[in-house]
């Protein structure tokens, strides 16, 4: 299968001489959710800004949907890769929600019928019916975040990039983001998450790429990456609390990495049903 996004040996050097990403290879396929982890300044955002052509590689090649990003216009690429910024205020500026939702589609010069159809779909999926005439700045921060996501969803790009989607969100907001990521995947989108939120990745148990000092140092399933203590320490990452607890429970399978509360409970239940004899550590 052809990857939808293909990053080949890409290096980016900013005009001040700083190398932000170095020799990156990465293939992202249809329907994948990929989390990009790493400390502040490790190159996560620089990497992802190459997907929609906001940045061009200094060296190497990136193709998105078969198009070489170096040669394509940003307007074309942004119809393929939608970017939801960390701070919704950075992408919200129109007087009401409905105009905000229409804006991206209008920019892409869609017909009025198509715009209406897409906006209606986004309104339905995000349950924004009651907010259409509100000024986005009168909404609370989680609602504003949803408007920002809905306006990107309306463009219907194949790839949706979420930059730190759960930052500053309360528990309910975080659960909602988790639900939305799954919904994006269900609707056939590729989701790229830039995040520090280990709970979110634990719940998604998705593919996880770790950046460290401008280089890609790990790329695998979350449970494998979280189990790799060397990589986690190197990148200054901590697994969710439940993962650490599971490690110290002697009656769980020590070869498995547990990422969620449910998976721990499930294993305990299976153990009892199978009548496994439990030996305590002395």
């Amino acid at each position, binding site marked *: 299968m052809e990857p939808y996004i293909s990053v080949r040996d890409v290096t980016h050097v900013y005009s001040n001489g700083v190398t932000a990403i170095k020799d990156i290879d990465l293939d992202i396929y249809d329907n994948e959710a990929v989390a990009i982890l*790493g*400390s*502040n*300044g490790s190159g996560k955002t620089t990497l992802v800004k190459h997907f929609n052509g906001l940045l061009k590689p200094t060296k190497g090649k990136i193709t998105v949907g078969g198009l070489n990003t170096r040669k394509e216009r940003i307007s074309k690429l942004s119809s393929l890769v939608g970017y939801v910024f960390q701070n919704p205020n950075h992408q919200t500026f129109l007087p009401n929600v409905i105009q905000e939702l229409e804006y991206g589609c209008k920019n892409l010069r869609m017909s009025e019928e198509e715009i209406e159809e897409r906006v209606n779909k986004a309104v339905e999926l995000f349950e924004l019916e009651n907010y259409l005439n509100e000024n986005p700045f009168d909404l*609370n*921060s*989680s609602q504003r975040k949803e408007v920002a996501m809905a306006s990107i969803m309306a463009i219907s790009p194949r790839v949706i990039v979420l930059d730190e989607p759960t*930052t*500053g*969100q*309360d*528990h*309910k*907001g*975080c659960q909602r983001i988790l639900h939305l990521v799954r919904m994006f995947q269900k609707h056939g989108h590729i989701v790229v998450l830039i995040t*520090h939120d*280990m*709970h979110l990745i634990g719940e998604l148990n998705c593919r996880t790429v770790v950046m460290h000092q401008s280089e890609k140092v790990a790329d695998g399933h979350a449970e494998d990456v979280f189990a790799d203590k060397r990589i986690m320490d190197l990148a*200054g*990452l*901590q697994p*969710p*609390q*439940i993962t*650490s*607890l599971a490690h*110290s*429970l*002697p*009656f769980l399978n020590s070869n498995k990495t547990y990422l969620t*509360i449910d998976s*721990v*409970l499930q294993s*305990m*239940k299976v153990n*009892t049903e199978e009548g496994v004899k*439990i030996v*305590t550590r002395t």
Partner: protein
Amino acid sequence: MLKNQRAIEVSGLSFLFPDAEVKALRNINFSVDYGEILGIIGPTGAGKSTLAMCINGLVPQVIQGELEGKVYVKGLDVHKGNVAKMSEHVGFVFQEPENQLSQMTIEEEVAFGLGNLGVPREQMEGRIKEALQQVGLLGFEKRSPLALSGGQQQRLAIASVLAMKPTIMIMDEPTSMLDPKGKNEVYDVLRSLKEHGMTGIIIDHEVERIAEYCDKVLVLNEGEEQMFGPSAEVFAQIDTLHQLTMHAPQVTELLHQYNQKNKQDVKLSTSIEEAAAILENAYIKS
């Protein structure tokens, strides 16, 4: 003075923003002792930041509205003094360090608040060094604040406040922009302040860290105080938290679900070590 036994004492506090119909805070009562860390948690819009700003007088002196009730800091009536005076006692660190950094070098950044307080020049150098030492940034004096990582910038923001030698440090979601290492750095600074006898208030959504570092927790929802007490007791009230769309640390949630599924009643601990011991014990018995 009767009130000076406590670092912070809040009684009957209510606040109404101008033009608002509903009070942002309603009848809040709590107190914090010297050397204690209080965590304030609650859903978005609960009034956490408003409450924090009542403690240094930013509310209602700068952010105006109708305030009722009393706030005493070190026995001083906050709403009788002014914010500038209070800043000698209460330091405030915001969510985004960039919003609070303004100078060309790290040294000047820390000096800025001192200059505003009128600290004599000969005392400044010592206080700057001491503050940078406390947050682990000694040796960075001549660098630009903008050349620091997010975690370092937040520690610099804390140092700038520390140099003013407040007894109370309030941090409003100081770690939400930071990577896990940066988050630990901030909490470790908070813990070391506690060891210096300072009082801390931290607002955060990450309940695992709140449970680990805070002595007491105040739960706010829609302007009302829902719970206030020692962290372990508050997080053990897990049904109340769930009703408020909140959650307890993951290990506490696990113990709770274990109890429900197995009709057990094990203690709802917040620490990994204790939870592991409890589960090991309970699981083997069953």
